[in-house]
Each structure stands twice: as structure tokens, then as C-alpha cells.
């Protein structure tokens, strides 16, 4: 089974059982330093293992990263936001130039 936060990527691939944790990428098994929540999510994963009866079964964990609607919208929209297209174009060009000369790409 898979536990993750990129629902579209996992469902596009297709897996037998998927516990979707609707958090920013990086904490699929629960928020940092929150052992009770991590334990609760693992328990949900075990219930999904037992309950699924066919492939592509997705269960969405009820946990929310933040309750405030504005803060919720912020983390969703902020990631990979296209704020400065000129800077992005320049970063891409610099990366291609570095790769062409055999240097390590800059992430």
C-alpha cells in the first residue's frame, strides 16, 4: 500500500491501496513531532489494508493541515507558485547551461 500527499500522481499511476493525507508534500505519515497523530494515521493505514476489496482503493484521512480557510488556501497555492516568470525563465536557462557544460545542476 501507499501513503502519500500527491493524490493526482498516485492515482494516475494506480496502486492497490492508497491512504491520502492531504498535507503539504513532506509529511505523509503525519506532521512533525506529533506522535499521537502519526500513530493515528498508521492505524488508518492498517484499517485500509484490512478493508480494501479491490485495486485503486483510496481513503482520504480526515486530518487537516490547518483549519483556517485562508491558511489552507495559502499552502496549496504557494507551492511552485508562478510569481516571477522572468526569474524562473532565467533559472531554467542557467540550469540548462550548467548541464551542457557538465556541471552539477542547481535545484
Amino acid at each position, binding site marked *: 500500500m501507499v501513503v*502519500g500527499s500527491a493524490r493526482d500522481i498516485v492515482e*494516475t499511476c*494506480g496502486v492497490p491501496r492508497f491512504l491520502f493525507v492531504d498535507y503539504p*508534500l513532506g509529511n505523509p505519515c503525519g506532521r512533525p513531532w506529533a506522535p499521537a497523530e502519526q500513530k493515528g494515521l498508521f492505524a488508518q493505514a492498517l484499517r485500509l*489494508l484490512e478493508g480494501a476489496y479491490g*485495486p485503486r482503493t483510496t481513503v482520504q484521512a480526515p486530518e487537516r493541515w490547518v483549519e483556517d480557510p485562508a491558511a489552507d488556501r495559502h*499552502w496549496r497555492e504557494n507551492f511552485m507558485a508562478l510569481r516571477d516568470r522572468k526569474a524562473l525563465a532565467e533559472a531554467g536557462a542557467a540550469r540548462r547551461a550548467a548541464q551542457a557544460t557538465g556541471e552539477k545542476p542547481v535545484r
Partner: protein
Amino acid sequence: MTTTHPRFVSYIDKSREYYQAQGYEAPYRWATEATVPFAPMPGPLKSLRLGLITTADRAPRSEGRAGMLYAQPLASRGAFHTEMFWDRDATHTDDPETLLPIAAAEAAVAEGVLGSVSPRFYGVPTEYSQRRTREEDAPAILSWLQDDQVDIAFLAAL
């Protein structure tokens, strides 16, 4: 576009637009399977062994592909290298339990809910090449799981 009813983020759309803005015209072709396998649980959870798999790295990417895949004893748990695709503005990955729930799995065993946890955890770090994933990485991980007599593969995707 203003989203009035937020739902889950499409990372496929976001990353395509982001890399197009960087001048990469050809979008990444994400893996998609026409047929998805399914195996019922081979017994009650309390009789089964679960293996924990992460997509996080254990070594810096600068060290190259050699040694990227790993199987390591649970006792060697600790920090992962997480250089790849995750949200550095919203959160952090300093707590390894957010990536791989070793403590939660051990607690489930102690409570008698789960039979056992494999004595090793496994790493299949993020890889852009689907050929490598299919032909090299997945068979290697499967072989380790079989060596350790694992019944359930639990993959936490970073």
C-alpha cells in the same frame, strides 16, 4: 484563477506549469498503469509482517546513483536526506517519523494489532526514470522484502 472550493492539489499540473515557465516545453510523462494488481491480505494483521519503504534518500544526491537503494536495520533509523520535491515553505522533514512511521508500526506490534515489522526498512529514492523503477529498483526492493519474509509492503511517498 481563484479557487473558491479548495480541493486536493494537482502536482502534475503545478509541476508542468512550473517547468514550462523555466523553459522546459516537453512535460514529464507520469507513470500510468492500465491494470493495477491487488492481493487480498493473506491472513489477519496480527499474524503478518509489514515492511516499511520510503522514497527519501539516505545519502546526498551528489554521491551519485550507487547506493541509492538501501535496506537498513530498524536500529539505524534516523535522519533522511530529503533534497527532492517537497514543500519547504509549509513544513520541514526534521522528524523522520513523518517520512517513515517506525515508532507507530512498533507500537501497533506492541499492542498486538500487527504481527511484526521487518527488521529492515527499505529505501527507493525518487527516480525520474520509469525504466529504472520498473526494471531495477522495484525488483531489488521485492527481493529484499522476500528475503525478510514480508507480507505487507507499506510505501510512504515523500
